[in-house]
């Protein structure tokens, strides 16, 4: 009985720790979770499955290990019904992320950071100036915060011909979970007044498997 009670306390402590860290979206390290449980590895192994289950059952939140790492991320398994469900800062961040992710998706490759920043400038989002809607330090938000949160991947270019260090942006692991690429394609196509099918190669990559469709031929 005592053991059962101790186990339940540990599960709760771990659950509270995860819940407290959902908001900042930073990956939770396995090591940090172990620390909550007095660095007991076996205890973590015992508690984690039920914490994962409770998060899904009660909160609708998925706690998932990032492949090939000892880190976990949390995201909602449900689509929001409106932006009212988020606070103002979350709405600002998600909006900016949608703009960036849709651009990267339509380019369908890693994009040079200058190219991305020029695209944003075209939308009157200068990352080195205070923006009236997005506010704050946008360079830091895009190059550091979104990267740490695993929304974006920022890697050094491996090209040998480059004289200066160049950085390339692509989708991060969290982005693929929270923004299903086929939804982003459909929404972006909608904004452009087109059908998702009009973007043949991207459509074939992300959507054609859904309906057991034959991939469309690229002109």
């Amino acid at each position, binding site marked *: 009985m005592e053991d059962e009670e101790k186990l339940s306390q540990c599960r709760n*402590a771990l659950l509270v720790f995860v819940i407290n860290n959902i908001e900042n979206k*930073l990956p939770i390290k396995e090591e940090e979770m172990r620390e909550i449980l007095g660095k007991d590895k076996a205890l973590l192994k015992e508690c984690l499955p039920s914490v994962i289950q409770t998060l899904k059952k*009660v909160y609708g939140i998925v706690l998932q290990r990032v492949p090939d790492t000892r880190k976990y991320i949390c995201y909602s398994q*449900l689509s929001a*019904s*409106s932006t009212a469900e988020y*606070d103002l800062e979350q709405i600002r961040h998600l909006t900016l992320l949608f703009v960036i992710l849709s651009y990267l998706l339509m380019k369908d490759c890693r994009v040079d950071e200058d190219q991305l920043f020029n695209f944003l400038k075209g939308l009157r989002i200068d990352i080195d100036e205070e923006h009236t809607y997005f506010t704050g330090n946008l360079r830091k938000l895009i190059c550091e915060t979104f990267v740490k949160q695993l929304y974006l991947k920022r890697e050094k270019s491996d090209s040998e011909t480059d004289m200066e260090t160049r950085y390339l942006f692509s989708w991060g692991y969290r982005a693929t979970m929270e923004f299903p690429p086929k939804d982003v394609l459909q929404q972006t196509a909608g904004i452009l007044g087109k059908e998702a099918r009009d973007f043949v190669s991207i459509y074939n990559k992300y959507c054609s498997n859904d309906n057991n469709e034959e991939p469309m031929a690229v002109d």
Partner: protein
Amino acid sequence: MRREVKKLFLQACMNHGSLSLEQISEILEPISQSYDDAAILGDVKNLVKEINSDLKECNQELKFVKHPLLGKEYLVFGLTFETPASKLQHHYREADQLYFAKLVETMAVQEDYGISWVDMYNLPNLPQTVKKDLTKRRVQDLITKWTQQGYFLEKDDKLFFGPRMLVEYASHLKTHFSDYIKDCPLCKNVVLWDIKCDRCEIKVHKECIRTFLKRKSNCPSCKQVWTTPLN
């Protein structure tokens, strides 16, 4: 369907920290349309009750609290007790956490539990290392964030304890500032502003004394006739 509605609403409560009744309607209307469940709009208390029964074993709850300064009701998502884990929000730097503690401490000892913007930037007793780490901009950002989460609220150019503070930090405030913050003798919950007995100066919740005076006419503490006007 009901399960999804509960999860979405709970997530919204977690995102916001505290919600006014207007915000609750703004959130629930689209959810009720998505899940074709118009009944939830007129039955928020029951929805919250159902969510709380799921949350009970996780030491968390959604709680309606009326904020005396604004006279408005809020729904707050909070921990029902402090665990070591609750202190480990690693996205706040040590300087931020120390600033939060000093801010609460400074507010708790004020007569009106409020602090002006000027005082917020110049909190006394902040270690030099913390001062160095906290720019004016950072202080502004932190206050905005904590206000959005319901820990503080702004009124008449001053900052006061917000609805979430009343729920999550009530016992902390009582324990650490017992000379300044006490329970209402009637409901045994923290009373901050509300109303004082003219004679013994004990504070009570307006709602509590209103109900009490329907049956009796004396102060629940000094037992003398209650003379403070309720409005």
